[in-house]
């Protein structure tokens, strides 16, 4: 049995406390009037001469003269007011997505009846325990958006929809009630599978036949069908709809690749941590090697999707589509291209060598870069539409990351203490113990 070490527990509380402080400062510093907003921007010494280039959701029709300036200033106010909310949402979603990626990986291992991974099942189940608290936080943020507490999703603003033909056309799908119903169905389905599969996994340890294992196999295969559809729709709802005019048909896959690689990375990191503390004695280098191969492969898969999305839109150059990348290349140049270096070049070059994939500190170091890179991926997906060129990785952003990191660590490691770290009666446990590459 794993015991949650006091040092780690205290570390997670400190992370949460510092994070709350950062989030609080972010909300306090957000302007409440147009004058304050202008003062903040002037104080930072950069004019907002080309801020209108990212006037997303305020419609293409620009008012003229003074009216334009006024709407411009109001837009700036909304961007700055969105900043702490967007920072909170990006971090909340990022850590939630790690747990969701692990859930998909776990379900695939179950459905494939993989022989190498049963030793890691408890680690995966521990990480997916974060789906409940993490999902609730994300849901609350979405519900607050629907309640007009923030302007993360412009299509939720009836003023904007009234002047926008496209959004009126999409209102049957993009409306607050249906949006929350969908979110509840997605979260409910994922959590239901997680809890049920965990129950069967624990029951299998005490049982004297393989019926729990077989049932787990069947529900996992069924769940993957639900997951692929719900994850894809979730990515349209929770991420793509911040740019409600823009759409991409492979967006669901693209977000999936991000969550999958982040999830696998966290499995590897938690496993290495537990092993360094003397737990999981039967996990060997080959298990880490396999996880690192997945990190390497899915990083390339992510890049493939990122580039496929980019190249088609860049080549066809249709104004409705290309604004998405114009904004990112103009205002988010460093995070946008830096993310490709972190998510592609770095893992490809570092994890290509077979020996490096078995070296724990190498896997952890690459993992940290991969996680930072995929945080940037979500950052680049949410920020351009919500805060535009006012983005900055400052106190609210880092505070949110720290808070959710602490929150994540606390719930994941607390779940790891609940059951023995090694499944006893999984039919493949012997194969997993002797797994050798």
């Amino acid at each position, binding site marked *: 049995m794993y015991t949650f070490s006091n040092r780690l527990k205290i570390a997670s509380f400190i992370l949460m406390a510092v994070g709350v402080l950062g989030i609080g400062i972010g909300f306090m510093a957000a302007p409440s009037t147009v004058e304050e907003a202008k003062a903040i921007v002037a104080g930072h010494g950069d004019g907002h001469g080309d801020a209108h280039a990212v006037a997303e959701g305020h419609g293409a029709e620009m008012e003229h003269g003074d009216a334009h300036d006024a709407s411009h200033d109001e837009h700036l106010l909304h961007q700055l007011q969105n900043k702490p909310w967007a920072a909170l949402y990006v971090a909340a979603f990022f850590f939630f997505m790690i747990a969701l990626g692990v859930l998909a990986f776990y379900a695939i291992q179950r459905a494939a009846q993989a022989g190498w991974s049963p030793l890691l099942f408890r680690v995966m189940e521990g990480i997916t325990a974060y789906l409940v608290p993490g999902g609730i936080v994300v849901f609350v943020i979405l519900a607050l958006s629907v309640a007009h507490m923030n302007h993360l999703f412009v299509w939720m603003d009836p003023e904007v929809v009234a002047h926008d033909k496209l959004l009126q056309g999409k209102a049957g799908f993009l409306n607050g009630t249906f949006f929350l119903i969908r979110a509840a169905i997605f979260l409910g389905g994922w959590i239901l599978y997680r809890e049920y599969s965990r129950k069967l996994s624990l029951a299998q340890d005490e049982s004297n036949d393989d019926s729990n294992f077989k049932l787990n196999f069947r529900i996992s295969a069924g769940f993957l069908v639900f997951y692929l559809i719900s994850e894809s729709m979730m990515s349209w709802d929770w991420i793509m709809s911040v740019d409600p005019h823009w759409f991409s048909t492979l967006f669901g896959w693209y977000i999936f690749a991000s969550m999958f690689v982040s999830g696998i990375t966290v499995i590897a990191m938690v496993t290495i941590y537990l092993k360094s503390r003397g737990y999981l004695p039967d996990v060997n280098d080959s298990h880490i090697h396999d996880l690192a191969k997945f990190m390497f492969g899915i990083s390339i898969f992510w890049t493939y999707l990122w*580039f496929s999305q980019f*190249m088609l839109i*860049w*080549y*066809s*150059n249709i104004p409705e589509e290309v604004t998405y990348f114009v904004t990112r290349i103009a205002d988010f140049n460093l995070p946008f291209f830096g993310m490709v270096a972190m998510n592609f070049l770095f893992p490809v070059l570092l994890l*290509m060598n*077979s020996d490096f994939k078995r070296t724990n500190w190498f896997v952890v170091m690459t993992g940290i870069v991969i996680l930072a890179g995929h945080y940037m991926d979500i950052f680049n997906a949410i920020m351009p539409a919500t805060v535009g060129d006012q983005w900055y990785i400052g106190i609210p952003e880092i505070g949110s990351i720290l808070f959710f990191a602490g929150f994540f660590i606390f719930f994941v490691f607390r779940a790891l203490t609940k059951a023995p770290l090694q499944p006893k009666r999984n039919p493949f446990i012997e194969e997993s113990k002797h797994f*050798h590459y």
Partner: protein
Amino acid sequence: MASKVIHAFYNDDDVLMHAVKKVKAAKHHIEEVYCPFPVHGLDKAMGLAPTRIAITSFMYGCVGLAVSIVMMNYIMIQDWPQDIGGKPSFSYLENMPAFVPIMFELTVFFAAHLMVITFYLRSRLWPFKEAENPDVRTTDDHFLMEIEIHNNEQELRDLLMDTGAVEINITEK
């Protein structure tokens, strides 16, 4: 040069693996093992040096990438610039996204084909080459271990029988 070799036949890959480990433990040099299919872990058990083909593959990939860059720069930018999708920028870098699929494909193409050719050269294989395996059954359902004899025929024979060989032959090589 006539040297005597002993051929031990096995009909199971697990038995073969154990036999290889035993023979190695008894400090005999195994000339070669002929298998109808690749046996996982056999190279390590025989103490063969790890393959360096992955390194050649990486280098071939780099060559392919370089060839694709030079080729597309010559074809699409220098020799005959074309206006495709309104992008006549006459600059390799600005048109680069359009060339990425070609860069990727040629990297894979070079790495894969040159790696196979390297493998053939290194294994001394070419079309219409006479088969080298000493017994046709090694292409069907038998595994064969070949050990050179240095005045220790009886000792080897006993050892190999002990490891579960189904047949033992002595031949001149």
